[in-house]
């Protein structure tokens, strides 16, 4: 089961931006206040190594981050790579989905559709690898 943030960060950015546009269409232009970003920053990757399951710093990841308020609701968007539109769309959607009373509940079926498409893409991606599965013969 993919989480909402997984679906929105890994789906095609233009589809995620289209969802954010739908949200923004319901508000005045001044309903959005940028707190920081969109800006390129680094996130240190913390890995759990496979021997003793301890944590170490494996290197940094370039991400784009946006923090904003949509009609007073805090929204956070972060995505791997340089993509200010995608990061801002994620922040808008984060704020919209956290609003009291769930006024943007209509987003959820759309996100579920994106989730189904992403699942199918993952299944195809893995199937190509699964075609290389080794069948050993035992002597």
């Amino acid at each position, binding site marked *: 089961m993919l*989480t909402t*943030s*997984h679906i929105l*960060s*890994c789906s095609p950015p233009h589809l995620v931006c289209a969802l954010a546009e739908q949200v923004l269409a319901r508000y005045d232009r001044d309903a959005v206040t940028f707190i920081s970003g969109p800006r*390129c*920053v*680094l*996130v*240190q*990757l*913390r*890995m*759990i*190594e*496979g*021997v*003793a*399951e*301890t*944590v*170490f*710093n*494996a*290197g*940094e*990841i*370039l*991400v784009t*981050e946006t*923090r904003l308020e949509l009609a007073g609701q*805090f929204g*956070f968007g*972060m*995505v*791997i*790579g*340089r993509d200010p539109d995608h990061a801002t769309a994620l922040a808008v959607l*984060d704020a919209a989905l956290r609003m009291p009373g769930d006024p943007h509940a209509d987003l959820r079926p759309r996100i579920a559709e994106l989730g189904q498409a992403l*699942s*199918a893409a*993952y*299944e*195809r*991606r*893995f*199937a*190509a*690898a*699964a*075609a*290389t*599965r*080794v069948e*050993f013969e*035992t002597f």
Partner: protein
Amino acid sequence: MGYVAVRGGSEAVARAEELVECLRLLGGSTPLQLPQIRDQLRHAVSRAMHEGALYAPLLAALAVKQAEGDSIEAAFLLRAYRTTLPRVMASLPVSGREMFCLRRISASFKDIPGGQMLGPATDYLIRLLQPALAHEDVRAVIAAAERYAALVEAGKPQPGAWGRFPKVTEYMRQEQMIVDVPAEPAREEPFDITREPLTFPCPRSARLQAMAQADTGSLMSLAYSSTRGYGDAHPTLVELRYGYLPVHVAHPLTGEPVTIGEIEATEAEIASKAHSVTNHAEPPRFNVGYGFAFGQSELKVMSMAILDSVLTQARIGSLAGESGPAANEEFVLLHTDGIEASGFVAHYKLPHYVTFAADLSVLDRARDHHAQRQSRLGQLVDQALTSDSR
């Protein structure tokens, strides 16, 4: 020739850079586009990223282009770029078991849960040049899409089958086959070599971070030395996996996990021979080492895992026979960073006129001394001093 301190040369430096740019394009070939490098020179991009310690495929492609394919220079460019950006947070710790695997093999166990998949690999091919690649055009792209569709069909996509598998080391731990890594003083955060200077002996988290950004060739050379006889490594690949790893951070308001995307990564665990550790009351176990790198970088992670295992064995005192330089943590970690090593070696190209002038004056004095010792009187005195010292 005079040996003097100098300044200047700015114009020559600028023109030298200009000449590099000209020579890159004067051949008349079409300039490389970054997506071409990212997609078609995957391993060069991976290497720039893990040695530059920055996951950013398109920027790594730019670095490879700017460095004209020089992997150490490309990593240097990325690492320098990294210093211009603020780090806002660390990710939530992620395990390789979350990886969506495209490749997963084990040389230790034939039957691993989920099976073995060769994935994208050229290990099993005969190393013959493929002349057809020299004449590729857009038809090759179409053909690749068709072949990929056929592979997907052959692999039979199934709902929820995304390539997540348990780690082989989980089974080995359950069966108590793995030596415990030496206990270390508890730290709130793993060691960060970009924030704290390395001192020895260092925490294992520092060792793993340093090797994750080390030069592939340097790690490979030391790992090879330990397996060939200048050490005590007897490695067997427990598991190697390559694929897509989702990354999560904590939401700044609620603290709940937020996925921010996937990275390509490779990791490996390698077992060394069984031994009884220092506590002979305990049953013998395997020593296992760990390796990780951005992108698809198999030699790097295997070399890292071998060295991690050797260094752990050295720490717990269970090495047998000659230990070799690969068992010396300080030697390994201070000499495998490609950027530091290349920077130090390359700096000898810069003017050292004053240093060399001092060397020349020492040489002149040494020559005078030598000439003096060659005289009849000098030889007599040397002879007398030698017999006196007896």
